[in-house]
């Protein structure tokens, strides 16, 4: 059984002043922790900072067994999730700083054994089936809670995603919300060159989903879009979040190698300065 997420705890020395928008605080924490740990997947994490700011900045509701579930299906971007948990006071700094440490539950992909994580992921194509099950469970148990799942665009190459897409539409899971991080970049190339996803909105539409297009780097717009989704809809919802790999750090933006590369000291300083100066 999953344990309930840890309750928000006051953090004595937050990394970043609360005047800075949550998405940028998440970005700064991503940069600091990835630099400290000398670990990559930075571009993928920066890509979803605004989506997580929307979800963890107020969209996700409830506590305990009846909390709304969130599945980070693109598990390789988990540093953004740890950063969101930290910046919203759900985990403390000492916990955050175990990221990629020996013996830590905070590895480079999320583990359900770490209480704030609802589902372990890391192998692409698992998240939407899990989320469909979570949404079906909520309906079967008579709960109004919603289920959110964040997928990468390249993950849509996996056939299991479309198995779950057909299932969720057939079951009319209107309280299921899939968000696609549509940054157009995958491990070895641009999605348009590897497996072209377009016309993506029409594809989801054809699978029976309600499609919503939004700027994936506008946390307020994301929040407004998600919060306005009709839970009574007979169709599950997919939010196509138009994003950029590495968003916020100009030398990373849309650059394929930043799917993997870690930061040098010089790059780290430049990246932090750019994110900090943006506000």
């Amino acid at each position, binding site marked *: 059984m999953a344990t309930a997420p840890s309750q928000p705890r006051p953090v004595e020395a937050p990394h970043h002043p609360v005047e800075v928008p949550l998405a940028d605080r998440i970005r700064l924490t991503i940069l600091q922790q990835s630099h400290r740990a000398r670990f990559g997947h930075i571009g993928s994490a920066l890509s979803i900072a605004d989506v997580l700011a929307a979800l963890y900045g107020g969209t996700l509701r409830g506590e305990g067994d009846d909390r709304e579930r969130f599945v980070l299906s693109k598990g390789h971007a988990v540093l953004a999730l740890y950063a969101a948990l930290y910046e919203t006071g759900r985990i403390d700094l000492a916990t955050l700083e175990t990221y990629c440490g020996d013996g830590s539950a905070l590895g480079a992909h999320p583990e359900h054994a770490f209480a704030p994580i609802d*589902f*372990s992921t890391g192998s692409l194509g698992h998240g*939407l089936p899990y989320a*469909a*099950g*979570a949404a079906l*469970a909520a309906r079967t148990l008579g709960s109004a809670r919603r289920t959110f799942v964040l997928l990468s665009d390249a993950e849509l190459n996996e056939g299991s995603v479309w*198995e779950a897409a057909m299932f969720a539409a057939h079951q009319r899971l209107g309280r299921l919300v899939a968000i696609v991080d549509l940054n157009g970049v995958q491990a070895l190339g641009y999605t348009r060159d590897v497996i072209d996803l377009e016309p993506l909105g029409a594809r989801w539409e054809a699978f029976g989903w309600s499609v919503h297009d939004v700027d994936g780097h506008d946390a307020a717009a994301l929040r407004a879009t998600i919060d306005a989704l009709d839970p009574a809809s007979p169709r599950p919802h997919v939010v196509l979040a138009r994003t950029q790999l590495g968003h916020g750090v100009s030398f990373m933006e849309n650059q394929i190698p930043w799917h993997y590369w870690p930061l040098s000291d010089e790059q780290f300083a430049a990246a932090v300065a750019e994110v900090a100066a943006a506000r």
Partner: protein
Amino acid sequence: MRNAFVETLTELAERDRRIALLTGDLGFSVLEPFGERFPDRFYNVGVAEQNMVGVATGLAEAGMIPFVYSIATFASMRPYEFIRNGPVLHQLPVRIVGVGGGFEYGNNGATHYALEDVGVLRLQRGLTVVVPADTAHARSALEQTYELRRPIYYRVSKGGPPIPGLDSDFELGRLARVRDGGDVALIALGPLAAGAVTAADRLADEGIDAAVAVVESFNPSPAEDLADLLAGVPLAVTVESHFVDGGVGTLVAEVIAEHGLPTRLRRCGIGELPRGMTGSQAFLDDHHGLSAAGISGAARSALLAAR
């Protein structure tokens, strides 16, 4: 056996609302009693086994006990990574029901032969594997394990006769001793135990005293019970409608080695995936040395070779 399994599941669901049943579009004339009684907890997820196990993981995370149902090959291998990363990694009570072990779908050909399901799933140490030998045992096994707080794979047969001498109470992690004997132990998996009993009768006619035992679970496996049995016989013959690797033959070899026993071992099972060789279950079992005559012959020849 599968009908009795589903009848028992329906009875359990009557008093336990956590139970749900998912099928990958299989189970015609088997699943109807559950589906008609509990339409709100019965889902045909379509021909999509990966999604079925993923959905079951989501259901179990919310406190439900989902059973997923398909032919053994499709239930075990198509969603294998989902089983590992889902219920095993999350330690959730998903139940995978694989129907038709070995050659039960004989005329359907190689894609339908479940010859490695037990072996590949046994590798997942966080998953319990249950293989009932007859209908009474299937009922008992389900009743006694359905609430276990870990995932389970049930290898369930379409049918099969009662096993003479088999106590109908299933005990997880224990060896079912069907009869005693000092010359050879016939150790069977699933309904082939019936053939092992017949083989023991034939051997008795020849003055060979054969014990018969049935392995009905892995993780936990009946290692200590097997060690006790094996310590009393010079020869063990394992009998399974499965590849000779990964199942009962491998388990018995492990027990012999880890306990330092002098018992010799002859493994009866399938050596390679048959290609272009279909037929009835009885034909295929016999072709692979798994009929009663094949089992008694294997025991006889192994005893002669040791003299």
